């Protein structure tokens, strides 16, 4: 499959008003709104186009498996610092996440609290818009403020603005040293301590609280990690690498719920007072709940200045509640105008982000 074929498929769908459902490995079919339209399989459009370790970037096609990218980076001691889930072997129909799906969904893993989100690492994208035009945004350099920053806008857009045919991401060196500490504490204390530590120059790269236990990962220079270990106390964790993979991949039992809500909250927010707390991540900024009461969850998150995503749930429930918190009428209108500017006939992943477009 080449770029022209891919663009041709979209052009044809545009001409015939055919909705398309863009699909890489399908590892995140569970995520977002309804899956509608003719499947546009982009998994075949794969391969690393350029990787320059000393320029700190990698460019790859959308169908490239994340596992391949991580392996290539690891050879040079580098990584995708936002630690995205690969969802390898999760679910029946999954072959491991692709780069395109990773960026389109905008999901980051445990290191998000230290390194930043997917969008923070976007340097450029080759986008095929809803009329089949190939557009180049951004580039391969770290700093580029020429034109609107469309490439970052694409992170988390769930394919509704175009197919992210080729993506350039900033990469970073792997930390020299890493160590994980364990603490026994309750929810309130975990949130308080995480925020207190967050205000100190400590090399905390991940945090995960579940069922009275807090896992804290320290990453950085050897000396900094050693000093933090001495300062923080706690007990060293065994099998820590495996633990963090289970958090990244959401195979940890904390995520096992038929209805799973993701709450993004200001990190210092107190408990939202909901039942079903499963886990706290990102220094308090990301909290997971099992349960079904949509209005109560959305309302609680909004009151604390955050929002709630119906992350995993049966499709019927996701359609009923909407996967993402509703937008204000003015913001929704702006979203529709933007959507239209990239996809005039609304053929790309309709309803995947919001039912309205």
């Amino acid at each position, binding site marked *: 499959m080449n770029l022209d074929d891919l663009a041709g498929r979209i052009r044809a769908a545009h001409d015939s008003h055919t909705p398309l459902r863009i699909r890489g490995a399908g590892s995140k079919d569970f995520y977002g709104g309804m899956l509608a339209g003719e499947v546009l399989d982009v998994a075949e459009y794969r391969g690393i186009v350029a990787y320059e370790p000393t320029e700190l970037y990698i460019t790859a096609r959308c169908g490239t498996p994340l596992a391949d990218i991580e392996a290539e980076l690891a050879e040079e001691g580098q990584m995708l610092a936002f630690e995205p889930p690969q969802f390898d072997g999760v679910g029946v129909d999954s072959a491991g996440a692709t780069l395109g799906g990773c960026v389109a969904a905008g999901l980051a893993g445990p290191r998000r609290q230290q390194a930043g989100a997917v969008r923070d690492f976007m340097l450029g994208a080759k986008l095929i818009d809803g009329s089949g*035009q190939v557009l180049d945004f951004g580039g391969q350099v770290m700093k580029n*403020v020429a034109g609107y920053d469309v490439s970052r806008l694409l992170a988390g857009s769930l394919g509704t603005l175009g197919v992210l045919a080729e993506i350039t991401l900033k990469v970073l060196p792997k930390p020299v040293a890493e160590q994980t500490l364990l603490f026994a504490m309750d929810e309130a204390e975990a949130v308080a301590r995480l925020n207190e530590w967050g*205000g100190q120059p400590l*090399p905390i790269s991940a945090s995960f609280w579940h069922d009275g236990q807090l896992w804290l990962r320290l990453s950085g220079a050897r000396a900094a990690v050693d000093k933090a270990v001495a300062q923080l106390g706690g007990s060293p964790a065994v099998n820590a690498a495996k633990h963090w993979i289970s958090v990244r991949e959401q195979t940890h039992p904390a995520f096992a719920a038929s209805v799973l809500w993701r709450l993004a909250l200001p990190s210092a927010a107190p408990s939202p007072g909901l039942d079903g707390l499963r886990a706290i991540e990102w220094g308090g900024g990301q909290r997971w709940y099992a349960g079904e009461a949509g209005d109560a969850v959305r309302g609680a998150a909004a009151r604390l200045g955050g*929002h709630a995503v119906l992350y995993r749930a049966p499709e019927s429930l996701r359609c009923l509640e909407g996967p993402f918190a509703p937008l204000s009428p003015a913001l929704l209108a702006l979203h529709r105008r*933007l959507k239209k500017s990239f996809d005039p006939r609304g053929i790309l992943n309709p309803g995947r982000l919001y039912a309205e477009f």
Partner: protein
Amino acid sequence: MTTPEPDFQTDRAALAGRLKMILPAHCLLVDDEDLRPYECDGLTAFRQLPLAVCLPESEAQVIDVLRTCHQLGVPVVARGAGTGLSGGAMPHAQGVVLSLARFNKILRVDRKARLAVVQPGVRNLAVSEAAAPFGLYYAPDPSSQIACTLGGNVAENSGGVHCLKYGLTVHNVLRIRVVSIEGEVFEIGSEAPDAPGYDLLALLIGSEGMLGVVTEVTVKLVPKPELAQVVMASFDDVARAGDAVADIIAAGIIPAGLEMMDKAATAAVEPFVKAGYDLRAAAILLCEADGTPEEVAEEIGRVTEVLRAAGARELRVSQSEAERLRFWAGRKAAFPAVGRITPDYYCMDGTIPRKRLAEMLSAIADMEHKYGLRCANVFHAGDGNLHPLIMYDAAKPGEWRWAEAFGAEILEMSVALGGSITGEHGVGIEKINQMCVQYKTPELEAFHRIKYAFDDKGLLNPGKAVPSLHRCAEYGRMHVHQGDLKFLELERF
């Protein structure tokens, strides 16, 4: 969206009459002598008097001004401290300047949540000063940080000497309040790690006042490192200094700052600042490590080793905070220092892949001969962002035109080397023609469609940041770039 730039015709008296109805007298300037200080920003070569300057004191007044201008079809140019270097805040001849200078309050510094909520007219450095008692600071530090404002930083996605490790404005802003040209208020972003819907924060940051007017900014504060130390290395050869930068990155080190200055720059700076730079060196590198004392010692050790192996002739490590600041003072004062040795200078802002540095510097040396003008180079080496300072004398007839052509050639070379025409200063009015070199018709059309989604009458900062296709057609006719005539599909004037 291929329509030419709209031709605005404003009835000045009617406009002034309407503005007087919504703003108190001390918030409105309409006389030419009062307007004069607003005719340009930091790019003084481009000047234009506006019809009026509004200095609102409340968001309600901002909304009123925008609604009025929307109704009357009058262009609006938002302005912070006016320190921008690309003419982004240059007024429109038929329009209003909307100054946010009086939005100068820090509304909240939240120690626990590590964030600050500030008005757009607050100076960059003031945020860090307010956060200092809590051991926190705001990371992006453009060299103009004592004067430039957060609103302007958001508009330009400003960087600074520490953005390799700590990111640009886009990485450090959590939320903004924005008023649309129609007077509608949007909260974009969140104090949570993300917000529902498209990442409009990423789109708005760096949009150069083209999409909305910012009335409030929430920024992330980060813990101040316990210690910072700088290694200063001199090199006999700029190419070798460039390679040393790549070697540091290849060793898995992301320094807090990694800057280069060439001989012309150190020669200009040293008599002015007395930073102790090696004046015999072809280039010097400044490499900063920060963190805990142990961490810094470890990193300085590794950096020193890499630099020595890369052929550094002399290495000095700052032995005190005073010495560290002195090493940086020269770099931060590079622009004013060059301003002392030449009547005028023109600062460029291209980015290039680091490995093309030597090629770029040798091309610039050739251009100095070609245009008969000198050029000093300071370089955010860590992230490939080059600031050549072209020296000229505006009083000499024609010299500005040569400087402008020199700059244009540098920018076009940046694109040819795989980089960008601007890393942190923005396109503004200055680099509007070079946008035609960096982007082709489909991307420019996409930018215009985005603009239209926010501002369908094209009233916010018209003529800046994104060129019309007709402008590009005209420019393409003058400059056939590498034999590739762009915008072939357009009629030529």
